[in-house]
């Protein structure tokens, strides 16, 4: 059962475009959306949320088109976004009462429970919250209307590691019931190294890959060795390279098909998502990335 399907989605601006985006999330799984600043993560999320109009393609949430059935779709999505659309002149409790009424499954008691769990005082004015508290508030609000899909746009940006850990804990709790799916965009990829089931990586408005994290970790490896062994990588399919007078480091594809002799004397390292991003985004590490494809 697919919770979110993005098919051939395009959004054209004068100087930037999302090109032919395709990916989907199954019910009960976490999809991490990664890419550097300006890669198109937020544009993609805003298009999914129908906050900005798409140029072409379609977005299907739990079987419903996000434009044709906008109200129904928005009812199913809980979000934590960068710009907060909440009422800053009133209390958290009132924010829930006033804005929650737009949702068919709004539950004020659940909302208060989450506020308490996140140690937020319901009587506090929204404007008085710190950045981390605002994120928690948004999450409490999102969860109080029992969403099927959670859309989180950089929820952990600018927050300390303790809060980030707590946030990940909460998400882990949520997906245990197998009914909710999460789309989690971030450039702090260590948050996703652990919990994400799938990763969609975009750069310059295009998908570089969208795959399960297990497959990604099987496929990509970093090979590192002294420069005297550099000739050994000539047979490998590498997508990123960093090289100086002493050693070289390359991100290689199809690492699982290499034989032991191919890698004799070289170090094979399982890359973190961050490493993959660095190798594949940066066009000019130490003066020379080449692509043998």
């Amino acid at each position, binding site marked *: 059962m697919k919770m979110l399907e993005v098919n051939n989605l395009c959004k054209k601006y004068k100087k930037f475009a999302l090109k032919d985006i395709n990916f989907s999330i199954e019910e*009960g*799984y*976490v999809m991490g959306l990664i890419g550097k600043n300006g890669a198109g993560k937020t544009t993609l999320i805003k298009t999914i949320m129908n906050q900005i109009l798409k140029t072409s393609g379609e977005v299907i949430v739990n079987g419903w088109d996000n434009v044709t059935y906008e109200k129904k779709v928005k009812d199913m999505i809980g979000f934590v976004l960068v710009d907060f659309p909440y009422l800053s002149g009133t209390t958290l409790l009132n924010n829930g009462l006033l804005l929650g009424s737009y949702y068919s499954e709004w539950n004020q008691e659940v909302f208060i429970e989450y506020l308490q769990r996140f140690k937020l005082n319901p009587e506090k004015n929204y404007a008085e919250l710190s950045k981390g508290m605002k994120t928690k508030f948004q999450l409490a609000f999102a969860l109080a209307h029992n969403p099927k899909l959670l859309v989180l746009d950089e929820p952990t940006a600018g927050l300390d590691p303790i809060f980030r850990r707590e946030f*990940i*804990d909460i998400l*882990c*709790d949520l*997906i*245990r019931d*197998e009914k909710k799916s999460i789309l989690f965009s971030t450039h702090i990829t260590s948050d996703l*190294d*652990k*919990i*994400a*089931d*799938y990763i969609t990586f975009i750069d310059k408005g295009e998908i570089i890959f969208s795959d*399960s*994290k*297990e497959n990604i*970790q099987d496929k990509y490896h970093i090979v590192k060795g002294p420069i005297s062994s550099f000739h050994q990588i000539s047979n490998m399919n590498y997508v990123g390279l960093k090289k100086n007078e002493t050693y070289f480091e390359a991100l290689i594809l199809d690492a699982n098909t290499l034989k032991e002799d191919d890698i004799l004397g070289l170090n*094979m*390292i*399982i890359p973190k998502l961050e490493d993959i991003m660095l190798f594949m985004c940066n066009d000019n590490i130490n003066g020379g990335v080449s692509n043998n494809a």
Partner: protein
Amino acid sequence: MDVVIINNSQVPIYEQIINQIKLQIIEGKMHVNSQLPSIRQLAKDLQISVITTKRAYEELEREGMIYSMIGKGFYVSDQNVEILKERQIQLIEKAMIDIIRECKKAGLTVDKAVDMLEILYEGENV
């Protein structure tokens, strides 16, 4: 069931899970027909992806270490201890080949290497 994940290890997480569960089954710490935590429970406890835990369980099932009952979960299979021991020995062999490679690199003779092994084997620290 004990599982400890080392995050900056070069052993993939699913393999770490497999190895630790296997060891506990071989050592008899996990009994035949006892139930394993659900995939989602384990993923939550370890704060890892559901797919990673799923992969580990599926691999263990393929190897016959555990079996699944639809809608109920995973259980420890009745093990053939001899086969398990044999597999362990295969792993040791593989580790030894790595050591031999290192010895050759360092120019260590067989006799010297065996001496070293004997001393270490009898040592109290290992």
